């Protein structure tokens, strides 16, 4: 067998947890190999071991048949191993070129040759079809382009073994498609790829083989051609998983959220939402479909009181709430699962318990006359941890110590538990495994069935199509169409999202 990488019986422990236990992974030359597992199963850890960021307690790594000790990323780089991390490893304030050449700068007389560097970057980006602007700063470019920068970083170093840790989680459908094409090109160049993803569809489409780990243990490797999504899900979770979310018919009642003619400016002062109209009724889930950057963020911020509405009205249960303080809006009955869980969702240095009461700490029973009731707080947290299956050492553990998926579950537990009249869920399942996704979707539907309104924003069309009762397509700050998920498909939505076909909103609003 022509294996470029063999990781044999790897064991990696963290204080109090065994992240990898006897995991074996063999990567063949020129294959795209998927690594599958639930959140916290130990995928990232295994890859970080391969990349030299962690040292395994036990096990052996062979590169091209030779046993190696990878004690630093430098060594991994020298062995031709490159990794695109789950959380991007980019310096925001640097330009694309600077990020790519960092550590291997072309220089003359000790000075960085900026021109040559940019030229080098342009060359490889053309070779592999990875379009980037060499002079743009990372903080100004889209997530998709950031991802391409990450890949270019590896290619610039001449890696032939590429590790992608959940590259598709943050991408739009178009970008995912592009990534698929890029990986194909790379494979043709003779490179081998390990791909971590939770999306079984992607595995089925893009990969040759898949290795599954469950709770740190290696379950085995199967050929994609010989398996199907159901089997994979079962391997991963250890039980049967139902895919298309089961939900009954929606019974929409009165209007909960009414948005009229809303105008919101973005941080640069440009109108991002331009006269947007939208209604969400009690007992329904409205999904907002759109490509990133069409005003979704600003729309949510305006509803939740974080951005100013320049014009227009936002009504919750008939009362105007635009430009009210976030707390007033929360109290009026809005819950919000933010898009960026690290930045907006959690105080990472607080214990889970304190995070659970982030909006309610000042209310009884969590506090009384300004004095916290720790007992009530942690008891409540403990209850939610159980109810929402948040995997954590305890309610006293810092939020920082949880895996991304479990951090997200904690946020969802907090927001859903408050039982708001309107629940805004922005990308609620980004980066989560199928089990968790199923769980969260069911929770959203449960909210709906309890007569609450749910507004779902997602870049994943499958999710929008599965969960929503109505789909509002957002394009350049306006709702350009309202469609019925049962009578539409990816193709149509994709076209609408690209702005090619504008439906009259009036026509569809009576769906």
């Amino acid at each position, binding site marked *: 067998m022509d294996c470029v990488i063999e990781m044999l019986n790897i064991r990696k422990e963290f204080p109090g947890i065994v992240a990898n236990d006897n995991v074996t992974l063999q990567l063949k030359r020129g294959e795209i190999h998927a690594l599958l597992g639930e959140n916290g199963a130990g995928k990232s850890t295994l890859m970080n071991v391969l990349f030299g960021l962690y040292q395994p307690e036990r096990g052996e790594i062979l590169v091209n048949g030779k046993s190696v000790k990878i004690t630093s990323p430098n060594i991994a780089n020298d062995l031709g191993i490159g990794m695109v991390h789950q959380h991007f490893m980019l310096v925001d304030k640097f330009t694309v070129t600077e990020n790519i050449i960092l550590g291997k700068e072309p220089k003359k007389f000790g000075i960085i040759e900026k021109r040559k560097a940019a030229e080098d970057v342009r060359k490889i980006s053309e070779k592999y079809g990875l379009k980037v602007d060499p002079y743009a700063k990372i903080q100004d470019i889209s997530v998709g382009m950031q991802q391409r920068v990450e890949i270019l970083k590896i290619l610039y170093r001449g890696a032939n073994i590429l590790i992608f840790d959940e590259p598709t989680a943050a991408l739009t459908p178009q970008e995912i498609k592009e990534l698929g094409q890029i990986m194909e090109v790379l494979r043709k160049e003779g490179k081998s790829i390990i791909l971590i993803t939770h999306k079984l569809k992607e595995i089925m489409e893009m990969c040759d083989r898949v290795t599954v780990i469950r709770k740190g243990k290696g379950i085995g490797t199967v050929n994609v051609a010989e398996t199907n999504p159901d089997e994979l899900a079962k391997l991963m979770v250890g039980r049967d998983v139902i895919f298309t979310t089961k939900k009954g018919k929606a019974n929409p009642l009165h209007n909960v959220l009414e948005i009229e003619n809303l105008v919101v400016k973005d941080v640069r002062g440009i109108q991002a939402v331009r006269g947007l109209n939208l209604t969400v009724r009690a007992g329904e889930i409205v999904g907002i479909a759109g490509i990133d950057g069409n005003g979704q963020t600003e729309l949510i911020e305006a509803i939740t009181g974080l951005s100013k509405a320049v014009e227009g009205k936002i009504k919750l249960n008939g009362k105007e709430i635009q430009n009210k*303080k976030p707390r*007033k809006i929360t109290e009026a009955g809005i819950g919000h699962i933010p898009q960026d869980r690290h930045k*907006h969702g959690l105080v*990472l240095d*607080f214990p889970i318990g304190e995070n659970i009461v982030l909006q309610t*700490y000042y209310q009884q029973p969590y506090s009384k006359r300004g*004095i*916290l009731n720790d007992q009530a707080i942690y008891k409540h947290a403990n209850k939610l941890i159980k109810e929402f299956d948040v995997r954590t050492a305890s309610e006293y553990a810092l939020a920082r110590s949880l895996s991304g998926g479990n951090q997200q579950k904690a946020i969802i537990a907090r927001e859903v538990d408050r039982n708001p009249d309107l629940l805004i869920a922005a990308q609620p399942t980004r980066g989560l495994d199928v089990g968790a996704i199923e769980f969260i979707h069911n929770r959203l539907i449960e909210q709906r069935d309890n007569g609450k309104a749910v507004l779902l924003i997602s870049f994943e069309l499958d999710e929008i199509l599965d969960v929503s009762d109505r789909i509002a397509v957002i394009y350049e700050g306006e709702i350009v169409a309202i469609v019925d998920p049962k009578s539409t498909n990816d193709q149509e939505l994709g076209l609408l999202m690209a702005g090619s076909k504008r439906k009259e909103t009036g026509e569809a609003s009576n769906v």
Partner: protein
Amino acid sequence: MSNRLINVMIPIIAIILGLLCGAIMMLVSGYNPVSGYSALWNGAMGDAFYFGETIRQMTPYIFAGLAVAFAFRTGLFNIGVEGQLLVGWVAAVWVGLSFDLPKVIHLPFAIIVAAIVGAAWGFLPGLLKARLRVHEVIVTIMMNYIALHTTNYLVRNVLSDQKDTTPRVSESATLKSPLLEQLTDYSSLHYGIFLALVAAVMMWFIIEKSTLGYELRSVGFNQHASQYAGMSVSKNIILSMVISGAFAGIGGAMEALGTFGYAFQHATFSGIGFDGIAVALLGANTAIGVILAAFLFGGLKVGALNMPLESGVPNELVDIVIALIIFFIASSYMVKWLIGRFKKGVK
């Protein structure tokens, strides 16, 4: 070894290591460490008098330490404790001199005014940070100098008749305690220590137990998430600096109404504010930690005075020891590693 035990061991080991290094210093430079340290001990704890002085010195240290710690816990670095303390000092003297009230009103009044003025001195950096994102470190450094010159001006031109020292505050505003002084053989121990302990409890309570403290900590850790959760980031930043400044201001009142009973022109900074940074950090920014660190510092500072006289060792040695202790505490990672080594060795 349990985590808790290790956390208790670290400061103890750090202190031992610090003293050990100090002893080596003394040996190398030709002094007798035994007589040096016994002089230090005698000068800090040797008898009732020195014990009283240690406790007296501890009082402003607790307040300064609490001020720094409070801001620190909420994500702010208040280097301005020194200035806030000076303005509180002068404010307390002003009240002590200018009013004729019964003690039950006068004394609390003087302390409250000191707290308010100290708070006001913290308000500006807080406001600038909250509204304009101006770094609090520079503003508080600048405010220190402004406080120094302004209070010197006030002492000379307003609170005294062109003198370097103000008159003493009236009896009804003093914290002086003939009882405590007598108990400690005429040390200048005053009632302030009890206030300091109460303040420490307050800090603990506000930070750990109140919703206010919850908000302050939350904003300190993650402004974005706090804003999402409906807290006012600006309000909390300002409030944190104001409370911190109030602690410092009361610290000044302790000197004004207790230790000295008057205000004087400061040639340079009193140093209490800067020592407060060390006290807070040594005390891990917790209330109980601040008390213990203030006690240690108070003892070392007071004891140091006795070293040259009794043993001939320059009292700068104590500054070195203090610095080393801070280092070892800061480098608790190393201490933990040492403990780990030691445990392995035992096994």
